[in-house]
């Protein structure tokens, strides 16, 4: 595994690909490797591209990658597709739209499935992105299907989040429901060659204006998270990022240079306003807590006989024990070695 780390850092694409598999499978070796790679991370600009199925995310990622390549930047792409809840398998088809990028040694595309476990998607994506970061890509594009909490979680990896809508599809009420506007740093109405694009743009702009300026500012600063962040810049106006709404036709590169500029403006904004430092610190803090939570949970469950837990759940199910009291009793075993379930008679 440390050979793999060395080869990866030396630029081996095979080593990178293999490392990504290890990381996805969360092997113990991957953990050691991530430790070695961590000091080499923090250099890439990470761009999340999310939106409803079929809005043109992969086509946009393809167009963006070409634009960044034309600027001489190297590009890593992570394309996340949902795992089938029935079989645990997945069809990962985003590469179909990225054929133009093949044969370019400055691009590396990796497809991954969500694999279902709660919170696992976000962790796996973060680790995969981190490995790509260590591999030295200037830009990392992360495509996720906007379908709920998972892409909001994944967004916590990204520095700039592009939310993609399409004419007709993006009826504004739906967009609010998905909470997806709240995570947008840049909004794109793709398929602008189709009728209704102007209307969708207007609807999105109206919705952005509906948001109270203060709330909008908070979203801008906090990237959709409500945890407080100290922003170094005290000038209210300057610390306000209003997501621009752009039109693109990904399939013929229309509007792509404007999109690249919008992403660049956002990058400059978060850097100059000092938001980036706070944001990164916040992400790392959240990650630390998440990991701690998982580790504590795992360790705790190891000490607890499965039968005792099953017993407890039976009591809860019978309404003889409320869940919080159950937790208190479980926690009490940290001080006294054996679990003592106290449930009501029913």
């Amino acid at each position: 595994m440390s050979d793999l780390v060395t080869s990866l850092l030396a630029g081996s694409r095979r080593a990178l690909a293999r490392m990504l598999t290890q990381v996805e499978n969360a092997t113990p070796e991957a953990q050691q490797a991530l430790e070695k790679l961590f000091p080499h991370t923090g250099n890439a600009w990470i761009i999340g591209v999310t939106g409803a199925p079929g809005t043109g995310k992969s086509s946009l990622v393809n167009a963006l990658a070409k634009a960044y390549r034309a600027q001489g930047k190297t590009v890593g792409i992570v394309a996340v597709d949902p795992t089938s809840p029935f079989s645990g398998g997945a069809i990962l088809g985003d590469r179909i739209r990225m054929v133009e990028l093949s044969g370019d040694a400055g691009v590396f595309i990796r497809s991954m499935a969500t694999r279902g476990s709660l919170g696992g998607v976000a962790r796996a994506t973060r680790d995969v992105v981190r490995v790509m970061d260590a591999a030295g890509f200037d830009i990392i594009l992360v495509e996720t299907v906007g379908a709920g909490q998972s892409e909001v979680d994944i967004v916590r990896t990204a520095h700039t989040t592009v939310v993609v809508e399409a004419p007709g599809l993006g009826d504004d009420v739906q967009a609010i429901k998905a909470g997806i506007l709240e995570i947008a740093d840049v909004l794109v109405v793709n398929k602008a060659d189709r009728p209704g694009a102007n209307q969708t743009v207007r609807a999105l702009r109206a919705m952005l204006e509906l948001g109270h300026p203060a709330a909008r500012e908070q979203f801008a600063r906090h990237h959709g998270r409500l945890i407080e962040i100290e922003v170094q810049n005290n000038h209210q106006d300057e610390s306000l990022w209003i997501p621009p709404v752009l039109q693109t036709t990904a399939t013929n590169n229309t509007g792509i240079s404007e999109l690249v500029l919008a992403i660049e403006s956002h990058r400059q904004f978060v850097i100059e306003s000092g938001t980036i430092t706070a944001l990164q610190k916040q992400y790392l803090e959240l990650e630390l807590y998440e990991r701690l939570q998982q580790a504590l949970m795992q360790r705790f469950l190891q000490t607890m006989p499965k039968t005792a837990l099953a017993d407890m759940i039976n009591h809860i199910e019978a309404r003889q024990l409320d869940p919080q009291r159950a937790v208190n009793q479980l926690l009490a075993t940290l001080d006294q070695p054996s679990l003592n379930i106290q449930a009501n008679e029913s």
Partner: protein
Amino acid sequence: MTVRTARVLIAKPGLDGHDRGAKVIARALRDAGMEVIYTGLRQTPEMIAEAALQEDVDVVGLSILSGAHMTLVPRVREAMNKVELNDVPILVGGIIPDEDRDTLLTLGVVGVFGPGTTTDEIRDFIHTLVVKKDTNE
């Protein structure tokens, strides 16, 4: 035996424009719990090798209906070997005459599946390959 998820690349080299068969296989393998990377029509051998490398797949499945398998398959094998994917097995599906089958099996292909093959057979074949790979590692 394996608990990890198998990753399979399904690719269509050459110029024929029918990918229904490839999609049927892709869906069957997904339903068998595998992750299937599907790259679309008209892939060059180099594109297939590159995708196989980046996606770190366990197996590459080629769907060829054009009749050009005897030229395409060796080229894909060669392209894969060139990027050091010698150890990644290739399966071929399509309309393959019996006499070609045996030749293909000497050209770095581990399995040839004709029109009569069930998706279950292909699934089981891949499963066995993956188990073998994991025991060797």
